[in-house]
């Protein structure tokens, strides 16, 4: 099948862009619901396994050690942004410091009520971080600041904005978009966009 009259842009040769994605230099905002405005001094993150629980504030989170990460990000609405730079604390360091049990699943929650489920191995085995900075400055509120989750190797809906909680669990529990027909894991390179892909 050919779409008559469609030529497309000059072809890219690099393999960095997952199937079905196009590269944008913008940073679109896609959020279900209104932007949350959480003052940094009031922000808290609760990490729990249901028994052991630890609460972090801005300073106690940063005390775990902030690292830089340059990475590509991929939104399920087909845009990818290459070479973004973030500052944050690796999720592995947070879970370790909190001393929560070694469970296979996590349900991540946001200020404003958003939730998303992420396998713990996706949080600890790759570059996932609790992000506190974007491109050398604070993370703008519309992009999830002051603190958001960043799981760059999964579609961006897994990178919950306005991060408020991480609960590790023995069983998987679906979050907001996963309940609305989106894929449970969301790997852009496998094009896991929708339920059953």
């Amino acid at each position, binding site marked *: 099948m050919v*779409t008559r009259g469609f*030529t497309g842009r000059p072809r890219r040769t690099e393999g960095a862009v997952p199937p079905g994605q196009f590269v944008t230099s913008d940073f679109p905002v*896609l959020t279900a619901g209104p*932007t949350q405005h959480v003052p940094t001094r009031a922000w808290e993150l609760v990490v729990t396994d249901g028994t052991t629980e630890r609460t972090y504030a801005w300073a106690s989170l940063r005390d775990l050690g902030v690292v830089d990460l340059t990475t590509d990000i991929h939104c399920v609405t087909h845009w990818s942004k290459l070479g973004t730079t973030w500052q944050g604390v690796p999720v592995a360091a947070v879970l370790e410091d909190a001393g929560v049990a070694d469970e296979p699943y996590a349900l991540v929650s946001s200020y404003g009520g958003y939730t998303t489920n992420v396998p713990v191995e996706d949080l600890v085995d790759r570059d996932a971080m609790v992000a506190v900075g974007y491109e050398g400055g604070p993370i703008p509120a519309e992009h999830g600041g002051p603190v958001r989750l960043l799981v760059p190797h999964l579609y961006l809906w897994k990178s919950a904005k306005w991060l408020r909680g991480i609960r590790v669990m023995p069983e998987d529990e679906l979050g907001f978009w996963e309940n609305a027909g989106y894929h449970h894991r969301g790997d852009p390179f496998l094009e896991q966009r929708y*339920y059953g892909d």
Partner: protein
Amino acid sequence: MPPRVRPVRGWRAATVAGTARESASARSIRLAVDGWPGHVAGQHIDVRLTAEDGYQATRSFSLSSAPGEAPQITVERVDDGEVSPYLVDVATDGDALEVMGPVGGYFVWQPGDDVPLLLLAGGSGIAPMRAIWRAARAHGTPVRLVYSARTADRVIFADELRSPNGPESTVHLTRERAAGFEHGRLRAEQLSALLRPGGVREPRLRAYVSGPTAFVEEAARGLIGAGLDADSLRTERFG
């Protein structure tokens, strides 16, 4: 929690079945889709185009047709865009493309959601709103639309908005003054008044806000500032 709406999986062959110029920069494209399952007002589809050499580009577009009507998208040209110039200026009846969906269970309206609706649209964000107002009006649900466009020649669905079949609507132009239009961006007191039809706060109202990010941010923040509960607000941002 959004309703559990399972998307229809897989790419389907589709052809352009009709086009209609909606404004200086926008066009509606009606599609004939193999095995189209029908859709819910507010849902979107993914559209995949294939060039002669096999290169493909995929974008998401809201459906602007009501449930029960043939699937239709309404696209505004982005000047340096890759897909929108083809859809707005080139696509011709019979052209082949592929469609996935319909998709979406959050920015949707279904019969049974029988609360008064307030629709705030900016630019091409009016596309899913047309599906919602047509479905809601057919159902007898009160609908109020406030639409923000840059200039009069960029007002999409202008004829329908002027007709008795359209929703009760107000159109704001942000970059020019013209007779029959409000001028300027939506102000806080206007948003507050929209939540209080007849001067009385409507407690059951649900608001849908769709359009460019800056528009959605401002409108959503204004509605919440005016007292709307965040659970009564659905937003859809177009990049």
